[in-house]
C-alpha cells in the first residue's frame, strides 16, 4: 500500500491533500474511467444547454416537414409529425437522465437502509431478504411494467417502478459488505462500550460500506436509463407526446426504413449514457478497491 506510508511525517491536512492528489493521479491513469466521466459530463451538459441551441420546441408539430433527413436546419432531421428530432432528443435526454438519476438515488438510499439493518438484525434479515428474493425472481422489465400499469404511466411512477425493481440487488450488495464490517473487532469494541445500534450502524458501518455502494449506484444509474427507455418504448413509461429516448425509438420503429435517423440518434444517446456510466462505475471500483487496481501496481 503505497499511499499508506507516503507522507506520514507531514501534518494532517497536508497528508490529506497528498492522499487526494494520489487518488486523482490513479484516476487519471485509468483512461477508460476518464473517458466514461467525460461522456457522462458531456451528456449532462448537452441536456442542460441543448434546448437553447435550437429554435424548435420538442412538441412543435410541422406536418409540412414530416420525416425530413438531417439538415442544417433540423440537425437530427424531423419525425413523423414534423417535430424537430434534435429538440426531442435533448428534452428526452433531460427526462431520461433525471429519471435515471432519481431512481438510482432513491434505490441507493432505500437499499442502504435495508442492507444495513438486515445485516445488523438477524430476524429482520430473514424477513427482508426473503422479500428481496421474491422481487429478484421476477424479470426486471416485467415487474416494472406491472408496477407502472398499476400506478399509471408518468415519469414519477417510472422512478418508483425502477426503484422497486433495483432495490433488492442494492440491498444485497450493501448487506454483504456490511456483514464483513460487522465482524470486525471495532464493532465489537463499540458494543462493549455500550454504543447505540444507531451509532454503530450509521456512524461506523455505513462509511465502511460506501465503496461498493457508490460503484453499484453508478451501475443502477445506467440500468435505470435502459429500463426507462424500455418502459417508454413499450408505452409503460413516459407517455406521448412528451419525449424520452425510449418513446422516440418507439415512434421511429414504424418508419425505420424510411427515416433511419429517428432510430439512430436516440439509440446513440442511450448507448453513450450507459457506456459512460459503466466505464465510470468500473473506474470507481478500481479506484476505491486497491486490491483490483491495475493502475496502483503500475504507479509503483
Amino acid at each position, binding site marked *: 500500500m503505497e499511499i*499508506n506510508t507516503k507522507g506520514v511525517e507531514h501534518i494532517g491536512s497536508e497528508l490529506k491533500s497528498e492522499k487526494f492528489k494520489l487518488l486523482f493521479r490513479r484516476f487519471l491513469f485509468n483512461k477508460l474511467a476518464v473517458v466514461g466521466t467525460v461522456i457522462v459530463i458531456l451528456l449532462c451538459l448537452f441536456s442542460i444547454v441543448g434546448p437553447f441551441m435550437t429554435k424548435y420546441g420538442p412538441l412543435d408539430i410541422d406536418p409540412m416537414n414530416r420525416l425530413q433527413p438531417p439538415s442544417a436546419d433540423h440537425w437530427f432531421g424531423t419525425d413523423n409529425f414534423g417535430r424537430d428530432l434534435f429538440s426531442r432528443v435533448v428534452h428526452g435526454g433531460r427526462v431520461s437522465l433525471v429519471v435515471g438519476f432519481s431512481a438510482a438515488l432513491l434505490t441507493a438510499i432505500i437499499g442502504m437502509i435495508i442492507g444495513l439493518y438486515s445485516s445488523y438484525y438477524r430476524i429482520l434479515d430473514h424477513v427482508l431478504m426473503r422479500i428481496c428474493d421474491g422481487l429478484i425472481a421476477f424479470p426486471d422489465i416485467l415487474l416494472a411494467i406491472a408496477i407502472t400499469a398499476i400506478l399509471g404511466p408518468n415519469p414519477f411512477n417510472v422512478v418508483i417502478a425502477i426503484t422497486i425493481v433495483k432495490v433488492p440487488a442494492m440491498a444485497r450488495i450493501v448487506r454483504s459488505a456490511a456483514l464483513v464490517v460487522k465482524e470486525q*473487532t471495532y464493532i465489537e469494541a463499540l458494543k462493549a462500550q455500550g454504543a447505540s445500534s444507531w451509532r454503530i450502524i450509521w456512524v461506523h458501518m455505513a462509511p*465502511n460500506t460506501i465503496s461498493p455502494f457508490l460503484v453499484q449506484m453508478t451501475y443502477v444509474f445506467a440500468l435505470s436509463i435502459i429500463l426507462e427507455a424500455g418502459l417508454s418504448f413499450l408505452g409503460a413509461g413516459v407517455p406521448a407526446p412528451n419525449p424520452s429516448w425510449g418513446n422516440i425509438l418507439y415512434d421511429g420503429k414504424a418508419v425505420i426504413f424510411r427515416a433511419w435517423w429517428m432510430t439512430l440518434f436516440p439509440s446513440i444517446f442511450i448507448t453513450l449514457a450507459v457506456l459512460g456510466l459503466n466505464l465510470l462505475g468500473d473506474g470507481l471500483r478500481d479506484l476505491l478497491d486497491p486490491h483490483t487496481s491495475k493502475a496502483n501496481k503500475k504507479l509503483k
Partner: protein
Amino acid sequence: MLETRMEQEQLQSTTPILRVKNLKKHYPITGLFGRAVGHLKAVDGVEFDLYEKKTMGLVGESGCGKSTTGRTILRLVEPTEGEAIYKGKDIFKLKGKDLQAIRKDIQMIFQDPHSSLNPKQRIGHAIVETMKIHRIGSHKERIERAKELLLKVGIREDQFDRYPHEFSGGQRQRIGIARALAANPKIVICDEPVSALDVSIQSQVINLLKDIQENFNLTYLFISHDLSVVRYMSDYIGVMYLGQLVEKAPTDELFSHPLHPYTQALLSAIPLPNPKRKRERIIIKGDIPSPINPPSGCVFHTRCPYSTKRCEQERPVMKKQTTDHFVACHLHD
C-alpha cells in the same frame, strides 16, 4: 515465600469487586431442521473473583474458553447460565441503562490491533466517541482529555487527527488502551492484548498496562496463553482447560507448587533461558478433546498421566488446598 503468604492474606481480607459464579456458555449445535443435537460447551461452570487493583490472569490453550469467559462478562456473548455480581447486581440480568452503566465501568482491550479501530475514523475521534457514548464532559473537555490520554499512552498530540492505518501495531494497541481508559473504568478485561505484537513491542505494552493500572487504580482480568506474560502481569492466576477452571492460585504459589497435572505439564513447557539447566518435561499425550462431547468425569482424564477410574466417572470440584490455592483434581482430595 513470606511475601506470598502476605499476598494471600491480603487477597482473603479484601472483598471482591466482581464475583463470577458458575458461568456457563453452551452453544447449541443444530442438526436437520434446526433441532438441537448437542451442545458445544465453550465455558462450563467457571468461578472466580476479581479483587480491586489486582490482576487476575487466565491461561489455557487456545479454544479452552478464556476469551468467551471475558466476553460474557461484558455481555458481548450472552451466557447460558451463571452470575456475575458487580456492585451488588448481577450483570447477566441487567438491561438498558443499567447495562450501559456496567459497560462504562468495565472496558475491554482487544487482541487484534488492526481491526479494533475503525479504519475510517480519526484516532482522536475514537477516544472522544467513548466519552460521548457515556456522556462524559463537554465537547471541548472531551478533546482535551482525549489528547491527554493519548499522551499518557505515548501518542503525540499532533497525531490526534491521523487514521489508524498510519500507525504501527503497537501504537494501535496503545490507542485501544487509551480508548478503554476514556470511560474511566474500574475493571479492564485484556483479551490477549499483546499476542498479536512483536516481542520487542510486547514488553512496552505490558509495562504500559502496569503503569496505567497504578495510575488509574484498575482491576485487570488478563487473558493470555503466554505463561511468562501472565506471570509478569498477574497477582493470581486461573488455569483453564476445556471450558473449566482447573486450578486457581496466587502467581508465585502456582509457579512454585503447581498441583493440577495439567498445570504441571503447562509449566514444564516454558522454555528455560539457560540451556545447561535441564528440567523434566511432562509431555501430555493426545489432542485436546472436542468441547462438543467433553469427556465424562474430569475433563482432563483422557490425557492425564495419573488418571484413575474415579477420574473417569466423577467430576472433581474446586477444593481449597492452602489459603487461596484451589484445585479441581481427585489427587488432592
